[in-house]
């Protein structure tokens, strides 16, 4: 009984996630695609929670849904014109693209099935926040600082690109 419930939840989420991802790559209206992506990221957060990573799940919502996707929707609203959704949204290589994507997926799935089948774990989910904090400021402190540098560089770069051509010098 305790085992079927997570499986059921996982099945629902998997179907939802695949459906939403398909909408993301096929929707004619980019805005709708972005909203579908937002929902998909939410489902991924739920998957993290299912995997016992509660802090990562909340961060996923906070960073992706509350941050990245809002900026993305923002840019879409600024750069789309009203009738843009009538345009074709895929290029001429879609057959080859689909073939390539399918090939990659199939290869990965077969490999994963062969290697990692039947790896089970029976641990009770415990709060991870404190241990992640200790990890980030302990063993991972060098990458942590490096990432902060990358963020600073991204910030400066974004401001630079955001300036008008005449203000740049």
């Amino acid at each position: 009984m305790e085992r079927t419930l997570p499986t059921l939840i996982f099945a629902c989420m998997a179907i939802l996630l695949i459906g939403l991802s398909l909408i993301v790559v096929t929707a004619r209206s980019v805005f709708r695609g972005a909203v579908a992506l937002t929902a998909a990221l939410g489902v991924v957060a739920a998957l993290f929670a299912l995997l016992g990573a509660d802090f990562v799940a909340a961060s996923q919502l906070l960073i992706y849904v509350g941050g990245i996707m809002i900026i993305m929707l923002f840019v879409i609203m600024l750069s789309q014109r009203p009738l843009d959704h009538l345009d074709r949204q895929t290029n001429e290589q879609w057959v080859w693209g689909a073939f390539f994507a399918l090939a990659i997926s199939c290869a990965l799935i077969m490999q994963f099935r062969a290697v990692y089948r039947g790896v089970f774990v029976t641990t009770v989910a415990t709060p991870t926040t404190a241990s992640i904090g200790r990890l980030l400021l302990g063993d991972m402190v060098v990458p942590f600082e490096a990432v902060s540098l990358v963020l600073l560089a991204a910030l400066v770069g974004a401001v630079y690109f955001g300036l008008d051509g005449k203000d740049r010098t």
Partner: protein
Amino acid sequence: MTLSLHHFLMLSAIIFGIGVYGALTRRNVLGILMSIELMFNAATINIVAFNHFLYPDKVWGQGVVIFVMTLAAAEAVVGLSLVLAIYRNIKSVYTEKLNLLHG
């Protein structure tokens, strides 16, 4: 039926494939960015699943996922400001219009 590692891995493989398809076929720069975000997330599902199933008493995988998210945020910010700069210059966000070496 109990959840096993390969269920998560297979799901992430499918999502990754969908992301690859989108990145290869979308005309819109924003669509390509969105597909790349999908691929990122497929990877993070993998990392968290490996962490959970193979090293249940450690959180290194989750720490790595936090970094991935941060870098994705940086990538999105720079990418989107580039998109806006492109839009301001050529009034379009379609990749085939980006055919000038000098704007």
